[in-house]
């Protein structure tokens, strides 16, 4: 796209037309913005998978206080808009309390804060998905595990969770897709991801439909394959019963 116009494609009208149509992309780091989106998604996915699993373990465990904490966390966080959480990480945690998560420049701080907010929010949904998965494991599995003398931690980590994870690939995929779309909320605190770039481009350029289509296409490219591939994986790994 950045080759000198006309020189390389002389005699190829399609290539030339393409260059004129996509001229508005010149000067914008489209791929870079989507790369930030992907980074936000992946980091938050890993973090919320870990924290969500811990929350799920607390919610099904034998200690009443932990159960209460897990339930309260999920019910509160799930009902707060993600936007409020993300904005709070910036205005509350960073600007009021001075927490910078070990970063020094503005962009890195906001990126890390956004990941923190996304993890806090998404793990509530991961927790619920995994808890639903635990319920799909037949009672006999846990009973057999207890009968041979395994402790709660052993029952959970050796017998129940491995089977539960295999049955929640589908629901977790939906959470992951929702997370991918939710990363756009990071635009609220100025993380340079796709939605922020789109806003900037729409303010400066004229091609409303074309720009919107490009960004819509970008997100379709991120979410549809995720759904298809992980949907297939989910069918593959599901425990046949």
């Amino acid at each position, binding site marked *: 796209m950045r080759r000198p116009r006309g020189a390389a494609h002389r005699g190829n009208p399609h290539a030339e037309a393409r260059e004129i149509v996509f001229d508005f992309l010149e000067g914008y780091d489209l791929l870079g913005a989507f790369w930030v989106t992907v980074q936000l998604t992946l980091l938050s996915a890993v973090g919320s998978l870990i924290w969500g699993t811990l929350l799920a373990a607390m919610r099904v465990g034998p200690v009443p206080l*932990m159960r209460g904490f897990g339930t309260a966390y999920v019910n509160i966080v799930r*009902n707060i808009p993600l936007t409020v959480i993300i904005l709070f990480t910036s205005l509350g945690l960073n600007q*009021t309390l*001075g927490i910078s998560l070990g970063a020094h420049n503005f962009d890195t701080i906001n990126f890390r804060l956004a990941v923190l907010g996304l993890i806090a929010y998404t793990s509530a949904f991961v927790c619920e998905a995994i808890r639903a998965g635990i319920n799909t494991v037949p009672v006999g599995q846990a009973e057999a595990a207890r009968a041979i003398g395994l402790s709660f931690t052993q029952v959970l980590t050796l017998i129940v969770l491995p089977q539960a994870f295999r049955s929640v690939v589908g629901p977790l995929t939906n*959470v992951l897709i929702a997370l991918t*779309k939710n990363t756009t909320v990071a635009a609220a605190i100025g993380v340079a991801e796709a939605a922020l770039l789109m806003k900037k481009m*729409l303010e400066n350029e004229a091609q409303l439909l074309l720009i919107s289509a490009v960004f819509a296409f970008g997100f379709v490219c991120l*979410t549809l394959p995720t759904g298809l591939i992980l949907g297939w994986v989910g069918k593959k790994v599901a425990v046949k019963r």
Partner: protein
Amino acid sequence: MSSVLYDAQGPRAKRRNILYTIVFLLVLAAVGWWVLKSLDDKGQLDWEKWKPFFAGTEAWTTYILPGLKNTLIAAALAMIIALPLGAVFGIARLSDHAWIRVPAAVVVEFFRAIPVLILMIFGVALFFKYTSVSSDDRPLYAVVTGLVLYNASVLAEIVRAGILALPKGQTEAAHAIGLRKTQTMTSILLPQAVTAMLPAIVSQLVVIVKDTALGGAVLTFSELLASANTMSSYYGANTIASFTVVALIFVLINFSLTTFAGWLERRLRRGKKSTGVVLPPAAMAGTESTGAAA
């Protein structure tokens, strides 16, 4: 207390659980103490910062209630417009004619794959460029447009699932007594599907209410979250207090909606009048292929 995952507790397990409880309590207390201390260090616990919400009604009547009103208006408008649109697309996806079914499917899948914020940003530019909507109304229009486009496609899936969940005998019986396809849909399937969908629709309302906050943060729509921002600058940087109050209001609204959806689901499952088919509230379980965490 016991569950299938662990045995009824003997004396040793009880002692161990008490130990765990104490350790967990200490951790919670340490975190809580650290939070309170850092809040105190920055003067966020001063009565001055919290006073507007407890003493006098100015903060409520000037900021919170108007913001809440806008949030609810946007959510209600979005739901009212998205519901019929979703129903049309949901039914279109079940059509026997490929030329209706396939385009409807493409539209629904497309808008479900795109973030609401992208649709809202598109809405702002759209209304700015092609309509004469005043700049005061533009954020509301954009927010509702974004919410409608996204939620209509989610509701289309809910409607489709609701109709598909009905027993096949309903359609067969309708055909047997000579009803046409349209009659079967409007007088047999839809009425039952609407009942089955109610919990899922109510919990979709939670998603809509939460997404209105995007308009406040990115599009200068003066809803509840935006009012928190204005308040914290007006009352001398009481960010923590403002956000706490606003978050609590959101939790209160959404928690009652979620509880209502759950109650509705249980009630419908118990009911003997219908076929007893109920779609679970999607946003709760996160298992439905809707925008669970959106």
